[in-house]
């Protein structure tokens, strides 16, 4: 399996690099490429199974857009050919049409609005198919008019003009505003994604599942409190 981590020197907030450490731990035959801003991305010239993009400072989103612009067609083809992208936090915004007045990659419809009046934090509890997902929002922006939402929000104060949904899911493109690290905190989602990539026999440890169960129980308890 080949994983490309885009721009780890900037797309690295809130421990998200441990999603990659998690993949390395549970997938035996793996090669991980770390692509910096000035590098030519591997997806543009070789077969990559998973592209990962982590959460960014807002100024750094522009650097990512500039870095990916020359490879926009390659990226669009990659996504249309059902190759996997997983992005967390505000990383998904670079794939939208605009972030405020800034032109983004316009691979997906929708736009992001920034609000620097204060930092936004929330817990979020969502559901994707049968999978319950737990995570946090920590950002200064939100998305509107998303065409392909990812997960249904069960509890938590999401933002945007459709707060009942989080993120983007199109073919095998997964973008969530949540941070965790997402694979670590949502091992069943991780297992599901690995199954899509035809990685079998992912044996999650007891601790990973216990941490997830504990958090899930806590999030569900809070959900009942509000119902």
């Amino acid at each position, binding site marked *: 399996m080949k994983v490309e981590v885009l721009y780890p020197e900037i797309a690295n*907030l809130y*421990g998200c690099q441990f999603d990659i450490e998690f993949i390395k731990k549970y997938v035996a035959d793996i090669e991980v490429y770390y692509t*910096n801003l000035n590098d030519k991305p591997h997806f543009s010239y070789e077969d990559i199974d998973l592209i990962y993009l982590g959460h960014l400072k807002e100024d750094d989103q522009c650097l990512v857009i500039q870095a990916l612009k020359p490879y926009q067609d390659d990226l669009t083809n990659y996504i249309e050919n059902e190759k996997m992208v997983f992005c967390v936090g505000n990383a998904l915004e670079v794939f939208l049409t605009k972030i405020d007045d800034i032109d983004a990659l316009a691979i997906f419809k929708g736009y992001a609005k920034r609000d620097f009046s204060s*930092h936004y934090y929330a817990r979020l509890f969502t559901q994707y198919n049968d999978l319950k997902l737990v995570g946090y929002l*920590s950002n200064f922006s939100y998305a509107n008019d998303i065409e392909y939402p990812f997960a249904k929000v069960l509890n938590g104060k999401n933002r945007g003009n459709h707060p009942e949904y989080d993120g983007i899911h199109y073919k095998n493109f997964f973008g969530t505003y949540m941070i*965790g*690290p997402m694979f670590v905190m949502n091992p069943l989602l991780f297992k599901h994604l690995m199954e899509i990539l035809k990685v079998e026999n992912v044996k999650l440890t007891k601790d990973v599942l*216990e941490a997830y169960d504990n958090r899930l129980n806590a999030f569900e308890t809070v959900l009942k409190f509000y119902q």
Partner: protein
Amino acid sequence: MIRFYLALWLSKFYYFLTGHSNKDDKPGVIANKIDPDFLKKVAKPKITICITGTNGKTTTTNLVTAILKNTNRRVIANFEGANFRPGICKAYMREVSIFNKCKADIAVIEFDEITANPYLAYLKPNYVLVTNLSSDTMKRNAHTDYILDCIKKGLNDEASLVLNADDLITSSLGEGRDNNIYFSFTKEAYDEKAYDSLVKDIRICPKCHSLLKEDYIFYNHIGKLTCPNCGYTNPKADYLLNKIDYKNNTIDINGINYPMINNSKFNIYNELSAIAVLSEIGIENLDQAIAKVNVTKSRYDSTVCGGVEIVNLMGKGQNAIAVSRTLDYATKIEGNKIVILLLEEITEKEEYGTNLGEPISWIYDVDFELLKDDSVKEIVVGGTNYADYAVRFDLANIDLSKCKMVPEVDDITSVLNLEGIDKIVIVRDLYLADSINRLIEDIKRKIQNES
């Protein structure tokens, strides 16, 4: 001004009624509630120093205040770490007369980075000292760009900035400004081998976005970084720490020896920054004033029982860099040790009937890999997020057979294996002081019973 005087008199009256309590911010709450412009209108001394930073601001504020008091100066200070508006209002209220005449010579005010605007506009400091800037609690402080922005919005043009030259993020505050003063360690003086930290808050050149080259690193991003493309690098320091003399307990700054108050590098940085700002003000006989300072006990304490030293270290929960630095310090303490981690503050049990706790993402920025040190014989984690720590330790390739996860703090003592142990190092969150005292007593009883 009627409103102001009402605020002043009522807050003074309350302060008097509560016996001049240092722990209660209510006098400041009252002053601010009656007159939200209290801070703007209250009389100020001739010199004001404002101090902020991700780590070390309370210690540095306490230190600067203590040194100034040792020179017989009257100081306005919110030295209890009360760095929000009520605490600052109270500090000023204490040191002005009922007619708003300032009795103090100098003000030393710690302020929270996020609230620089409008506090700095009210206080109009002569000096703003920034100890360092790095990732902090995710919930409130987001990331360093946000913190920088908050501080920049509050800075007044007249203030001289006293900045950490070893920190490219902090020192960037000085760009485009005159009268900056920088302090720094020399590479030779910082005599500790740096480990490769998970978190480096600046990795690319802010000018041309090339990857920065590390000339040398002290910890995280603190050190000397240079852009191989455009040459962007750290500014030159005005106050240079050249040497640490552990035998005589002194530090050499610009060729002058000062007593060393505490030998941890974190605290030496705090002392260096204090000396920089006080030297700029022109405080005489600084070395003598420093010699009279007692080190604050609230962040490091130890007691010996039955030949085992129990060390109590503070690691600010949710602040990955502070905890990493504490772990680095802890693992370097000589002897075979048990490390007990109590870093989770439970906040929501009563509201929802469940221990959701604070967000756990931060532990993935902590350098727990340091605990792989051979001298660490056992790691005990207390708190309800124990399973998350087990996952984190596994990803750090720490031998899980030496880890014990204990949800209830009161059960920790029973799992400790004291055989061959010289030290028990407790790394605890700031808000768990009471639980720690109980734990230490339990551990002492266990040591006595087993010996």
